[in-house]
């Protein structure tokens, strides 16, 4: 039996898991209190973080410990810490539940991170559409401040840490860290050109570290149970449990926090198996911007960063979108392309113009008006967008387009030739 909900969702089975008391009953704030009392050396925490090989849970999978080491705590001047809770990737819903059911663990994780990097002011940028999580997090902040866990000169330790919440305004692109910083500064959410990276030029031009909500929430558990325990919960270079947001044609869609390296088969079983017992057709394993993988690949794969990368896709944010054999892939791609064309920020020419172009071609195919050569055009336009923009939103559209055409060329060709779907025979549902 796969071990579940050990880290981010560890309070889930308790009554009112979002309360401070509940969190403390589960062992929460032990690490933070210890730091405040003993003044644990920063290097020691950093070493433990590096050892745990926790990889960023937001999508790129960059080692968190390494990221933290880029910010020198001794450099003078203001530095900032930002939590990216602008969870907008289609298929992803893990951070919402962390904020809903375990907000204090994010607060503790951020406080520890702030301590390690010598940061005294932090922001949590929460997606504007989240209603309950915003309320829960706000309440948790109040509780933590009242308990002397956030503020100035905490419990006489001389450590300052203030955490503010910021509500986004509904732009997917603000999940990109530099666009998020721009948005946080009150500007339009345009991604910045990198380098310079946020570690040297971040919020208000000051050194800044941006991490995902789940990454922060993992920190207190890593430090209380030790990096070795965390590492053992996963596989080498892929430390710890990770939340997978299973959606699509399964019987029990939802968030499943399981160790990295768990076979997909087991995850599918946890999610209640395929709906109506239909055969699996394809899976998008890491949120909508990850390339799609076919059923036979998926059934033999383990869910971790390296295995998925080897198979030509990525773990991304852990949003597993399961599709059975009734799924028309043209329709799926049309939906995805429409999403990305709506969410392109409009800054770079290839993405601004290309995303709309791609969406219109797929839309045309879906309406039975596809033309011969459209697939080559689609593939070429997607290729022209890839890697030529400031942020990776263009790639996030190009990758599914290219992988869909590669994996399901017959379906697309059938749609173009016959003006209807190969799968269900319909044009539009």
């Amino acid at each position, binding site marked *: 039996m796969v071990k579940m909900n050990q880290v981010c969702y560890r309070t889930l089975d308790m009554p009112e898991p979002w309360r401070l008391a509940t969190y403390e009953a589960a062992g929460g704030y032990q690490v933070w209190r210890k730091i405040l009392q003993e003044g644990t050396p920063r290097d020691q925490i950093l070493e433990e973080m590096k050892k745990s090989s926790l990889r960023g849970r937001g999508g790129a999978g960059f080692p968190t410990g390494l990221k933290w080491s880029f910010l020198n705590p001794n450099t003078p001047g203001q530095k900032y810490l930002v939590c990216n809770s602008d969870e907008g990737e289609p298929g992803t819903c893990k951070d919402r539940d962390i904020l809903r059911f375990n907000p204090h663990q994010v607060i503790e994780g951020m406080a520890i991170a702030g301590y390690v990097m010598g940061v005294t002011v932090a922001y949590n940028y929460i997606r504007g559409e989240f209603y309950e999580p915003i309320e829960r997090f706000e309440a948790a902040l109040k509780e933590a401040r009242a308990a002397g866990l956030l503020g100035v000169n905490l419990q006489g330790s001389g450590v300052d840490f203030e955490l503010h919440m910021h509500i986004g305004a509904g732009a997917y*692109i603000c999940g990109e860290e530099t666009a998020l910083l721009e948005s946080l500064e009150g500007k339009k959410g345009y991604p910045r050109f990198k380098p310079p990276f946020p570690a040297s030029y971040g919020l208000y031009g000051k050194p800044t570290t941006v991490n995902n909500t789940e990454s922060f929430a993992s920190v207190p558990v890593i430090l209380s149970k030790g990096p070795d325990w965390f590492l053992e919960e996963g596989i080498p270079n892929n430390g710890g449990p990770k939340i997978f947001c299973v959606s699509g044609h399964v019987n029990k869609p939802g968030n499943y926090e399981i160790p990295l390296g768990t076979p997909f088969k087991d995850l599918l079983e946890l999610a209640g198996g395929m709906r109506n017992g239909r055969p699996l057709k394809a899976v998008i394993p890491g949120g909508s911007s990850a390339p799609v993988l076919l059923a036979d690949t998926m059934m033999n794969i383990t869910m971790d960063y390296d295995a998925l990368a080897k198979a030509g896709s990525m773990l991304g944010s852990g949003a597993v979108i399961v599709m059975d054999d009734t799924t028309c892939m043209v329709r799926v791609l049309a939906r995805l392309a429409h999403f990305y064309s*709506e969410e392109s920020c409009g800054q770079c*020419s290839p993405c601004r*113009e*290309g995303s709309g172009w791609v969406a219109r071609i797929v839309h*045309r195919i879906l309406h039975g008006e596809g033309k011969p050569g459209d697939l080559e055009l689609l593939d070429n336009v997607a290729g022209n967008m890839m890697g030529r923009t400031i942020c990776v939103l263009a790639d996030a559209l190009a990758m599914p387009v290219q992988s869909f055409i590669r994996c399901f060329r017959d379906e697309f060709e059938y749609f173009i030739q016959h003006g209807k779907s190969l799968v269900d025979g319909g044009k539009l549902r």
Partner: protein
Amino acid sequence: MKIEIEIDGKSFEVEPGKMIIEVADAAGIVIPRFCYHKKLSVAANCRMCLVDVEKSRKPLPACATPVTPGMVVRTRSKLALDAQKAVMEFLLINHPLDCPICDQGGQCELQDIALGYGSDNSRYDQGKRSVKDKNLGPLIETEMTRCIHCTRCVRFGREIAGISEMGSIGRGEDTEIGTYVEKSLTSELSANIIDLCPVGALTNKPFRYRARAWELTQHSGVSPHDCVGSNLHIHTRRNAVMRVVPKENEGINETWISDRDRFSCEGLSSPERVTSPQLKRHGQWETVDWQTALQTVVEALQDVTEHHSADRIGGIISPNATVEELFLFQKLLRGMGCHNIDHRITQTDFHYQQAMPTYPKLPVSIADIEQQELIVVIGGNTQHEQPLIHHRIRKAWDNGAKVIMINPVDFEFNFTPTQTLLVENRRLPEALTGVTRCLAESQQDTEIAKDLLQSVAVTPAHREVADALLSAKAPLILLGAGAQNHPQAGLMYALAERMAQLSNGNVGLLTAGANAAGAWLVGAVPHRGPTGLNVSKPALDVQRMWESELPAYVLFNVEPEHDCANSAKALKALSQAALVICLTSYKTPAMEQYADIILPIASFAETPGTFINVEGRWQSFQAAVIPKGESRPGWKVLRVLGNLLSLDGFNYVVNTEVTDELRSLATTNTPEQPAGPWRYPSHLPTVSEGVERFCYWPIYRSDSVVRHSQPLQKTPLSETPVVTMSPQLAQRLGLEAGTEVKVSQGGDAVVLQVCISHRMVGDTVGIAAGFLETAGLAESFGTVKIERI
């Protein structure tokens, strides 16, 4: 420490921190680009400049990739070209194919680059995006469907003009560039976005559809509207000035020009131009030929010399005249024995004239203004008076310099000055004395002007200015029009110099007109001849000329009712004079009344000449078009008059002979040292009570060409003749905005509307000059009585 990089197989030694595109541009290697502009911040959003950098899997934008040691860049490899062509295709899919009706056609960056990187056939066969046009006012035409979202205009507003007027709205394909709330641009530099726009989205509205880039002939010119001397390219077609664009000169105007420089050319074709010589006979104007007109002038002048004496002639010349015109004007009058020559038409106090240097010159170059640590502007609305010097001041402020304004009006600037010392106009000398006293006391150097300094109480604001002056290494003190035109201008100049002495700083005059420096140098002042030599007997300055009510006046490109301080006095003097000769490009209704002879002279772009700008730089230019109608270049008219009056040394063939003569005079003559130190009065002059007028020339009323440019007159920056006062004063006088009031000064009165502004202070009311409506007031800075009608 230089590093070595390689671009397209060639090695370059470059400063670290430079971007690839800067190195390539310097080396003449062409990298296509749209969003990059050397004077703006890097946006890296057009992606056109993607190049192939070794060790990078993806092509990198040349505009945003700094050079690193040993970097190998290929701008034309397959990777680079594929990326560039792909971006080109993306830019073109939603760009309309309307080049034939687009004013940018033939000078379009997108068109040019599409020729090299575009395909002859589009793979995009769906509907193109169309965008609603924005109304940006009378200067800039928009066609936003053509916009490629390079955001140069947005960045220009934020970084150069200092007003965030343009922005991008919406996201993805629906991104639009606009002002959000539809409004005209109010920056005095706004039209530079026309040049910045790489496509035809923002174009020149007055020039709209009138000519194609390939039809135009380009001439170099110099702006005649302010002392900056911005370099221009004047574009002409079939002997007409079609438009003006900036000519790059890093030391003066960089790549910008003000809207005034750009659109004043629209005034050249005004119907009010005089195109033939005219005489007033029995109260009727008659058009005559040049010979008759010149003969009449000569006879009339000889008549005056015989019946009165030559020194009963008043010669008044515009500070916008060229060096040649100024030189010949004074040579002509002095040849006749008249030293009543002046160009300082906006000034009212000339006490300091003996202590002036040969000609006023900024102590630092225009480009160095941006390096200053502290700039103190006294009595200047620099943003409107010299827009491009103001731009340098803003750059200095941007670089961290302190900028202090000592002004009678809280002028609206495109940055927030570090400190603004607001005083009533008549108390400006008092404020300067207070600051000087603080400085003198902290430097323990109180002997000079002791009584004067003691007579003024020091306020904390004075001390703050003094502290800033003392803490800066070499502060720059600039005197604007408000200080130079002030009735206590001499005292203020002396105090400014004293402030500079005490704080180890420098003083500069931001002179009125395009060529005040040239006017001083050639001796277009009553007390000095060419190159600053003192004249045998002192003569009348412009205000004395008006007050003396002379029998004859010669006006060179001056409309006293618009251009001169104390205009009613001037008009009175002119109306009693037996002879008024106007050499002018425009005829005004008032001129028809007071003038007796009108000789049409060439206007801007029609005459060759030389301007000496505020930093002492000589800039000569050729005529771009031949003068309109029968008008002739001013220097030629003066030359012929000199010949007809049988004066020596008027046998010039080309205008450069005049400047050559001036240059040789300047090398042989050593100008006398300015007269000894200024003798400070023992106390400040008594300040009159009551409402006091502050006179200024609005940006688009500064000279006759600008006044006749219709597009400029329609902009939000153009003003109407009103009396502007603070809310407190309005309340005290029981007036509301829009009330018609009678503004009287002695026996003169004018009727104006009230405008209420929080920017006015105390009992000072702003009444602009440059309008016929306000010309009836005799004193530019005197007390006025305001009554409700």
